[in-house]
């Protein structure tokens, strides 16, 4: 009798304490899911976007950083001076900044990070961001001078990228599995294939985070994502992969749905050197055969903004050129017969894994078939897609979303997988790179958009939407995704 009573009592105590702990923990811990798991934890070498999605701004910080509206704001550098000719930048660093292992962050670390990124043997995925740097000089422990070979209007923008975050030489060796940065959260644990846990950095130099612990879970399967969210196994999903379920979450008072924009232009990439796609009339015919709204409705259940060129529509310099490629199948057939293809032709349509590509691909195939163009669809995994389409350029058409901000410059590279070679366009981009006057930059950007629209380089479909589903009580989540990041520094539970 006495034994049983003791047992019951201890069970009761245990249950109550767990209960109390449970109720308390819900307020300062959060589980947020992402589709893709990072392959490793170093944003500065061989980086996949998924690494930034977990670590950018949470664990690692750069000289500058992106705010939720895409603006470039001070990061580890609190201010800077730019020389008259635009080639010298002096960054003033914040003081009393420490890395998560306790060591101080100073100008030497900045020099180390930048030199490492631009070194001969660097495996930084965005080496181009650093190639213009001629020299990095430590002026004082909180002052760094960066000299560029030629002026670059996007330099501050470039330094906000995840590949440019500041790292420390003391902890660089196992950064891939134990990342040590300066951010508001520090890395705690990684269960490969499942989750990554972050803990609040109590010694953070800036405004401390609200959350004590943040857990990132990785769920790539759209139906698993839906089930997990519905069953409330997770508190939020950033970049929810199944737009067909968003309406259901919206009508459920337990959840909130945020739909923001991304820098992802989803395009029907066309191999400009593969006949008959090398004929601009044929490409124009393809453009008019496509009904953008049907694709947005069918593949994305209405989420997404149609675009007429390779530029983000929420950007002030965007030019609406959709009329150049409006839905007109009759015109399409006419153009095809003018080009000598009244019987139509067959080409390949190779699709990577995301559902915008797989579903969008089926819809486009059907639209092209209606004007006589047959497509052979192959659904490829990313590895095969990179091999065959991106590097091998062995494709006719493909669908992919280019998520880097301000990446219209890729059209100036003739060896890029579109294989578009226009000296007029290349001249525009060259001028843009050295231009720092904002008005002149706007004009050049507009001109660039017009050229690629009128050359019908690719089929411009829509700007990818960024849906986030979360518990209705969470505040501070970013609505937009100006860069690949899940910034949790200002996220908290409402009381």
């Amino acid at each position, binding site marked *: 009798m006495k034994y049983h009573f003791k047992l019951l009592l201890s069970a009761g105590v245990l249950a109550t304490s767990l209960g109390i702990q449970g109720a308390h923990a819900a307020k300062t811990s959060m589980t947020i899911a992402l589709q893709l798991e990072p392959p490793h934890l170093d944003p500065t070498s061989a980086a996949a976007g998924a690494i930034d999605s977990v670590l950018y701004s949470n664990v690692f910080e750069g000289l500058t950083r992106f705010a939720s509206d895409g603006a470039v704001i001070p990061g580890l550098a609190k201010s800077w001076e730019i020389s008259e000719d635009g080639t010298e930048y002096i960054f003033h660093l914040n003081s009393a900044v420490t890395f998560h292992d306790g060591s101080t962050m100073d100008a030497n670390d900045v020099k180390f990070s930048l030199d490492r990124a631009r070194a001969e043997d660097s495996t930084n995925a965005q080496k181009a961001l650093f190639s213009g740097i001629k020299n990095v000089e430590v002026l004082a422990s909180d002052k760094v001078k960066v000299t560029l070979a030629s002026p670059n209007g996007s330099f501050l923008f470039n330094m906000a990228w995840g590949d440019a975050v500041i790292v420390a030489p003391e902890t660089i060796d196992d950064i891939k599995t134990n990342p040590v940065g300066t951010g508001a959260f520090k890395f705690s644990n990684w269960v490969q294939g499942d989750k990554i846990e972050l803990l609040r950095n109590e010694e953070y130099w800036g405004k401390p985070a609200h959350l004590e612990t943040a857990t990132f879970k990785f769920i790539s399967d759209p139906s698993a994502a839906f089930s997990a969210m519905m069953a409330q196994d997770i508190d939020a999903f950033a970049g929810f992969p199944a737009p067909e379920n968003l309406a259901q979450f919206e009508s459920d008072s337990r959840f909130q749905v945020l739909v923001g924009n991304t820098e992802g232009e989803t395009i029907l990439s066309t191999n400009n050197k593969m006949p008959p796609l090398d004929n601009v009339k044929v490409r124009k015919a393809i453009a008019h055969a496509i009904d953008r709204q049907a694709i947005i409705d*069918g593949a994305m259940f209405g989420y997404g903004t149609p675009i007429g060129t390779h530029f983000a529509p929420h950007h002030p310099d965007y030019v609406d050129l959709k009329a150049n490629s409006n839905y007109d199948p009759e015109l399409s057939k006419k153009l095809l017969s003018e080009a000598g293809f009244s019987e139509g032709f067959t080409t390949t349509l190779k699709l990577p894994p995301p559902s915008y590509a797989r579903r969008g691909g089926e819809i486009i195939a059907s639209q092209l078939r209606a004007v006589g163009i047959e497509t052979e669809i192959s659904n490829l995994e990313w590895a095969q897609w990179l091999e065959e389409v991106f590097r091998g350029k062995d494709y006719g058409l493909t669908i992919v979303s280019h998520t880097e901000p301000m990446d219209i410059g890729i059209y100036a590279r003739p060896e890029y997988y579109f294989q578009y070679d226009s000296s007029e366009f290349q001249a525009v981009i060259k001028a843009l790179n050295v231009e720092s006057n904002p008005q002149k930059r706007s004009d050049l950007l507009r001109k660039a958009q017009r050229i690629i629209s009128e050359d019908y380089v690719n089929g411009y479909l829509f700007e990818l939407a960024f849906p986030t589903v979360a518990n209705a009580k969470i505040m501070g989540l970013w609505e937009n995704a100006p860069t690949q990041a899940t910034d949790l520094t200002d996220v908290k539970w409402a009381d």
Partner: protein
Amino acid sequence: MIRPSTSLQFGILLCLIPMIMATISFFWQPFDVTELNISNRLQPVSLTHPFGTDHFGRDMLSMIMVGAQTSIAVAFVAVGIGVLFGVPLGLFAANWRGGFIDDGIMRFNDLVFAFPSLVIAILITAIAGPSAFNAIVAIGIFNIPVFARISRGAALSLWQREFILSAQVAGKTGLRISTEHVLPNLMHILIVQATIQFSLGILAEAGLSYIGLGAQPPTPSWGRMLADAQTMVSLAPRLAIVPGVAIIITVLGLNLLGDGLRDALDPKLRGSMKK
């Protein structure tokens, strides 16, 4: 008392459903499955669309009918591969029983059996690209040892029979004996096994298609229909239920057919033996 013919009757009946659907769909489909009509999507069950429409506006009944073609074709050819390569292997092994050919063939069998079939199937499609053809190869490869083992086993016991020994004494070669005397008496076992492997092939094709490694769009496939339907299970459960039931009916029918045939063709019940 369970009469063998009940299984057989039910089996034939159930099998006929997908077979007839597949055959009809060669010549006529209620709606064109390659035509996507987004504005018509997710329509409920109606007279025009007995199973409703899917998320792309395609008629579900037409999708099921054409999907039957895919499943049946893949499973059938995969069985064909198993029989074509497996039976001769089994017969050779039985002919040269006890020697290292027999041993080698049996070890080869064991080796193939040891491989996790799904993983290898995924690997094959990763190498060669996803397609119905590659699914056939991947499934067919694992049918070979099944038929090799079963023909060897049955052939071995036949080789002990008197009429075989007398043929040997008469001077017939192993090859002739195998083809003229052993093989015909294996047929009933092979037919039954083929039906079973056929049903397993349908399940395997569905599984491979489900993870995206079978027939590619726009060719409909039951497995892929299930994968597409998964996120919409709460919006329109019939999208997931209908292809699942189609698979179940086909596999069930084939299994019942196999059982029924086994009882019907068993020589011990029939009482005669082909000499």
